[in-house]
């Protein structure tokens, strides 16, 4: 609808734009209705948080918060609920995901925005984003039937050849931390790459042209002008990817082996906070302590993602602020 084709309210003559209280009613209703909706959403999320805390109360009463987090025996049948294997698994797989995924995501973002021919820019973007469309259960399916068997011999060779490196040597099981971390790395590619792409695209062309004018090669220009400028935003994108990796359940539980122990090497089985909830909720239906332990695991997971996302937001905000500050003097100079 074009501006200017709007009929005045109620079809009355536009002489008097004063509206009667009756005519103001719809607006009032709208305001109240939508405000109530927004308030309702806050109330829901608040209730959500409170409920999680309340329901996890029993386990903290029984075992104590610190004990829950730092004991390493998770044996529900014996009433032992130590979350160390779960935390370790979550952190290890997420770390692997970051180490493997972020460089590739940033490289793809760099290539798409700076280096690739204009024609393939769009299809390439779509292809990377399509990775986000694959459901996590399909990642798990593919990981279970394709990655695990195919990677087995390679992992075996790697563990044997580099057995002097800590956490590499030793026995190799089919499902293990590494495969889980690899799948997570693939899953965080789209989001980290998308954010990095956005940030890299906002680098002012003056910076880039200045570098090139000084005789820098293409790569040197990227290294001098693009990356330092985009660093904060890229870190934010990496943090958002981390948040995703921490919370991923289904793909991980299918390829990590679900063993409530801390493996000695990258190529051994493990467990994560998210996977334990998915696997044990059925068995915990009538055991309040077990249920509370799982909810506590969910709470820890929630808090972790909260913290990581907050850090991500801080990075991105700082990068945006820096961009705005950097842009003004440059614009002044160009004028």
């Amino acid at each position, binding site marked *: *609808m074009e*501006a200017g084709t*709007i009929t*005045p*309210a109620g079809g009355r003559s*536009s002489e008097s*734009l004063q*509206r009667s209280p009756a005519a103001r009613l*719809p*607006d009032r209703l709208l305001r109240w*209705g*939508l405000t109530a909706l*927004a308030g309702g*959403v*806050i109330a829901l*999320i608040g209730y*959500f948080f409170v*409920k*999680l805390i309340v*329901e996890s109360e029993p386990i903290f009463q029984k075992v104590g918060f610190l004990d829950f987090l730092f004991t390493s025996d998770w044996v529900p049948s014996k009433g032992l609920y130590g979350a160390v294997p779960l935390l370790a698994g979550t952190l290890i797989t997420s770390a692997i995901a970051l180490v493997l995924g972020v460089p*590739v995501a940033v*490289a*793809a973002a760099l*290539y*798409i925005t700076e280096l*690739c021919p204009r024609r393939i820019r769009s299809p*390439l973007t779509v292809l*990377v984003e*399509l*990775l986000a*469309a*694959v*459901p996590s*259960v*399909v990642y798990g*399916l593919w990981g*279970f*039937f394709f990655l695990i068997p195919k990677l087995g011999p390679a992992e075996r060779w790697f563990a044997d050849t580099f057995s002097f490196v800590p956490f590499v040597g030793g026995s190799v099981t089919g499902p293990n931390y590494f495969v889980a971390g690899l799948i997570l790395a*693939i899953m965080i*590619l789209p989001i980290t790459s998308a954010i990095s792409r956005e940030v890299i695209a906002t680098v002012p062309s003056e910076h880039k042209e200045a570098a090139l004018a000084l*005789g820098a*090669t*293409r*790569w040197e220009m990227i290294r001098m002008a693009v990356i330092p400028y985009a660093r904060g935003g890229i870190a934010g994108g990496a943090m958002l990817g981390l*948040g995703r990796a921490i*919370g*991923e*359940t*289904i793909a991980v539980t*299918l390829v990590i082996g679900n063993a409530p122990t801390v493996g000695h090497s990258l190529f051994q089985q493990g467990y994560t906070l*998210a996977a334990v*909830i998915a696997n044990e*909720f059925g068995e915990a239906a009538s055991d309040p302590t077990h249920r509370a332990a*799982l*909810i506590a695991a969910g709470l820890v*997971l*929630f808090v972790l*993602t*909260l913290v990581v*996302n907050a850090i991500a937001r801080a990075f991105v905000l700082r990068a945006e602020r820096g961009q705005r500050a950097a842009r003004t003097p440059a614009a002044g100079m160009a004028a």
Partner: protein
Amino acid sequence: MSALALPPTSARRRRADRVARGLVALLTLVALVPLVLIVYYLLKQGLSSIGLDFWTTDPTGSFLGSPGGIKSAILGTIVMVGLATAVAVPVGVGVAIWLVELGRASRFAHAVRYFIDVMTGVPSIVFGLFVYITLVLAGVGGSSFAAWKGSVALGLLMLPIVTRSAEVVLLLVPDTLREAAYALGAPRWRVIARVVLPTALPGIVTGVLLAIARAAGETAPLLFTAAVVNDTTFNVNNRMNSLPALIFQNVGQAQDRLVQMAWGAALTLVAMVLVLTLLARMIQRRSRLS
């Protein structure tokens, strides 16, 4: 203009440049390899199972005979995601409208925005767990596992996505449009309904489609809430099958026929999600606002 004679770039720097750019290109290729492999594997394993029969027969749950098809799973996904959408979209768009048109920069709006942001980061399994304790174990509605409870979990997942993307699009609607409408004496609700929303519609639809695509692929919330059954049912107060849950149930099965069913279901699900995603992108590209 004096000709600036820059010293020629040294061979070392030129080599470093070529190597670095090659490496970046290589890593980009690496980023594409998983997609190619997944699609290839999906087609290779799944194409043989899919077909009209596969899509229109229920799983039999029989150990001996034929494993059947995935009809109940497809319909279950459509029903549950549809119900979730029917609730999440009005609420989400409503909150977005409130944020942009009514709340603007107030402190309450900041709080709402923050809470929505928090919700975006919550792992889907925590939503499932929440619905499990509040609705399933408590037996709300006279049933334990029920499809509508699955929809609640999916709706919670979709809400922040819809709100966020709707808010972004609504913010892109030029203020001049709004001001012109107000200047002509239109009441607020009219401005929103007849000016802002129609302009933002493609963007909102994009956001909704992406949220649907995301919800259709979620497994974790459904495990806790809708469970898995074989028969087709439209009774939302009963357990209902769904594509992700069916796939999850059949991974790791030793019987090849059941694994085949999982691949066929995976191919179907990915096709559905891909269609939604591509549709969303097409609409987004054609929108005036992006």
